[in-house]
């Protein structure tokens, strides 16, 4: 299990990295945590002849909050987000999702930007990113741009990034109400990729009504999916058992799973339903726990 021979460039700046990508074209790949790229290279499914390592680029690591929202640098590890207690108040989905990714060893190396760029339809961040309506900040030879979540994933392992573009950060908008979130995942064993993953993010107004809803789905389509109709059904509503059932059914319709070793399409679709219902039910209890009973 050794990768094919490759050249290794430890670049010091984003510009240098983009230069290298521009020079080597499709033969080059950036490497962040290496937790998706290296396994593929060892299996020789991927054989880039040049690796451009982002890990020594100053300023790419860590997260900052500002008035617009949260900015997560490209080399910020899953583990750093898992432990980012200050985000619990405004970005609870980050903390809810991170512990479900792989195992501690992988989380110590892997990055959110790398996970998004890799675009595995089963990735947990993909679902959370959609639910949060995030954006990626991208830099290329032509300068910088930003791509919204709904435009980012194109197909299995395919994004709208150009070969010579780099994600410099992931941006998440500041919540409009009080956020409550949960991530539910069916895995065959700990550290397994999702059989089905559901990211739920609700932003609730002071009256306990849903002002913003995000439902992201992992492993039930050729790319991470959002469930827009299910989200729409929540807007302006107070959560109830019946509403959760209705929304869960809509979310299940948004899923587009295929049958494989992990279960039939019907099973996976039903898991979306079960998880959305369970997730909304747990969020309802949390929201009601915070609200005066009469409100």
């Amino acid at each position, binding site marked *: *299990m*050794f990768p*094919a*021979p490759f050249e290794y460039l430890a670049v010091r700046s984003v510009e240098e990295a983009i230069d290298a990508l521009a020079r080597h074209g499709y033969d080059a790949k950036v490497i962040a945590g290496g937790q998706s790229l290296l396994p593929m290279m060892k299996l*020789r499914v991927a054989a880039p002849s040049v690796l451009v390592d982002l890990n020594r680029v100053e300023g790419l690591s860590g997260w900052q909050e500002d008035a617009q929202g949260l900015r997560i640098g490209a080399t910020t590890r899953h583990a750093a987000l898992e432990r980012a207690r200050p985000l619990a108040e405004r970005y609870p989905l980050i903390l809810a999702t991170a512990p479900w990714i792989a195992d501690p060893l992988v989380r110590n190396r892997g990055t959110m930007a790398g996970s998004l760029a890799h675009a595995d339809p089963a990735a947990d961040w993909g679902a959370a990113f959609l639910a949060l309506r995030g954006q990626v900040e991208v830099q290329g030879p032509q300068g910088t741009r930003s791509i919204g979540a709904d435009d980012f994933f194109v197909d299995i392992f395919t994004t709208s990034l150009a070969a010579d573009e780099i994600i410099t950060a992931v941006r998440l908008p500041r919540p409009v109400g009080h956020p409550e979130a949960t991530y539910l995942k*069916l895995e*065959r*064993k*700990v*550290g*397994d*990729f999702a*059989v089905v993953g559901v990211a739920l993010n609700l932003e609730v107004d002071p009256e306990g009504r849903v002002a913003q809803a995000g439902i992201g789905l992992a492993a039930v389509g050729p790319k991470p999916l959002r469930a827009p109709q299910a989200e729409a059904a929540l807007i302006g509503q107070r959560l109830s058992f019946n509403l959760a059932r209705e929304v869960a059914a809509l979310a299940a319709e948004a899923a587009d799973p295929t049958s494989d*070793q*992990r*279960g*039939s399409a019907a*099973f996976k679709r*039903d*898991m979306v339903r*079960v998880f959305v*219902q*369970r997730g909304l039910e747990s969020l309802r209890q949390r929201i009601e726990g915070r609200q005066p009973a009469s409100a």
Partner: protein
Amino acid sequence: MALEVTEARPLGKPIKRKEDARLVRGQGRYLDDIALPGMLYLALVRSPYAHARIKRIDTSRAKALPGVHLVLTGEDLAAKNLAWMPTLAGDKQMVLAVGKVLFQYQEVAAVVAESRALAEDAANLVEVEYEPLPVVVDPFYALEPEAPILREDRDPPSNRIFHWEVGDREATEEALRRSAVVVKERIRMPRVHPAPLEPCGCIADYQRATGKLTWYVTSQAPHAHRTVLSLVSGLPEHKIHVISPDVGGGFGNKVPVFPGYVCAIVASIGLGRPVKWVETRTENLTSTNFARDYHMEVEIGATEDGRVTALKVFTIADHGAFDAAADPTRFPAGLFSIVTGSYDFPTAFAEVDGVYTNKAPGGVAYRCSFRVTEASFLIERAMNSLALRLNLDPAELRLRNFIPPEKFPYRSPLGWTYDSGDYAATLKRAMEIIDYPALRREQAERRARGELMGIGVSTFTEIVGAGPSHTFDILGIKMFDSCEIRVHPTGKVIARLGTRHQGQGHETTFAQVIAEELGLTTDDVIVEEGDTDTAPYGLGTYASRSTPTAGAAAAVAARRVRDKARKIAAHLLEVAEEDVDWDGQRFHPVGAPARSVGMAEVALAAYTNLPPGMEPGLEASVYYDPPNLTFPNGAYICVVDIDRGTGQVHVRRFVAVDDCGTVINPMVVEGQIHGGLTEGFAIAFLQEIAFDDTGNCLAPNFMEYLVPTAVETPRWETDRTVTPSPHHPIGAKGVGESPNVGSPAAFANAVIDALAPLGVTHLDIPLYPWKVWEVLRQHGITE
């Protein structure tokens, strides 16, 4: 510093494992830790097709790569008459494919280069042109007349490898016809893999100057491997030195000889340099020996009041492309005839058809003495179905049918003589620990609330310790085992055995056996295994045979040493030999315990102050041919809760009461039980080496072949009863495999029990959530 273990009379005590001091510090020496000067590395080119004709192999680009020393193909080996090798099951297997390939990942060419990475690069440059052939994946289809014949080398041409049967067919069919109740079930035990943490590998080091081959190999049976190697290669046996260093798990995976081994040896002889070959995880899972893949049909008869009357079993055994099982030669289906289990069947009949398919060859005895797991799973599942049909509690059905203690030694209808057991006592102990009646009450309450709770019972009987020479051999070599004990002048002991442990704790447990017999502590005894130049000949460690065979040899050898020691003690104590007493630690004159000598003083005298005419030295060597096998048993009870929404099964409790006769070290036994139950759990819920219609292996790595971690492993509760083996020198039976043999049925029975109100009597393992979910939704159960 090794742990000091100075406790006197160590037998039966939970002494910490001597080997752990080195292993937990990372100071074990495994195969891949060994690097010899000038060593080269071998990588294999493998087939992407499950069945294809080889049109052309072009090795020129690989050979041209700087640093590549050798490229071998099947044709090269054929020129040396080495393209095929014998399997331990009496079939033959291609070393490197000649003419065609028969399974995906089959070995097609070997490349030897300066580094492992370079060898892999070069392997990628070997060009092979294939012409795909129709693939046979389903073993039932393999026996259909229209199925393509896979093994053109066989005469007569057929995909049937063997037909084997045992018992009285007519009497069994007649008894079934007369039975008030007959239950039929089709039960599959899927293909799984032992997947030891350390994969297989070897270093062949042939020295041209001496003509000697040193072969380092992760082997459970180094002596047998040396003999096979000598027969295959023509190298004289005394010029082959096999060293099996620390072995990182075997579970049956390291009994056979693999093509990579032969290639490394051929390369080393050809190049005069050491050559290392170590499998990747994918190579391990896809090519070196799966287990199980038994497709069974059972009919069990009973009276209205639940007394079993007859058992009939028909099995298709999928062996893959070559029958590379490592069963004793006269047992193509291993000891599957233990299938009547713990129950007093008046009559029984079993037949097994071995079949070729386009899958990896096997199947090895994965932590099971040759198809015993399959047999136990079948009978324990069948008893569950019978209990359902009779509307009897599954524990009660078992209690009504156990072979009673007074019937031992018990002759089973399929020919085994069970040595000892008190099955009801073992089951009752398990029922008491788990409070079985309370569980059934709780289950009734939960069912009334619509909850899915299940209780599974498995009361298995194992058959281990192959085996007596009148019945057991591998390629003619009788399945005895051996121990040689040398007591040095200061009373310190080195003992060498023909077995090779892989985590079972022999360095501790056999030291306990010997120290107990000699009045020493385990610290006084070093146990060595795995080096054919120093250890006496033996057939190795698998099939839970080490304690029944080599462990017995250790006790007998120690007693022989003690017999001589007694004579020397008489000389030192100046009394007649008959007047010497042994109190378990020291010799003293009868009736005069104040005056005594211990083994250290005797040992010194053996080299310095002997009775006149006695030969110096204090040692013994014993080859132990067991009079019978040993029959451990156990009662396992499992409690599960099923998630109505997802079909996930949660194992809430698992009680395992084992009876392995005399216990040498309860902590080591408990460790064995924990490990085996964890494997059984994986087999029941997580693991299958599955294939698609074109023979692609669907579980070629640990992303798809799931090994449980501490997170999903249930908490095990263990206990034991002790029914010593009457024929073993210290009354011990094997134990390593019991939990793997007995537990899969307990898990499956628990899940079926939870679903039984829906009319479910059977589901094939592994019990993935989606399978359970399908049953729930079919019956309108949802969340």
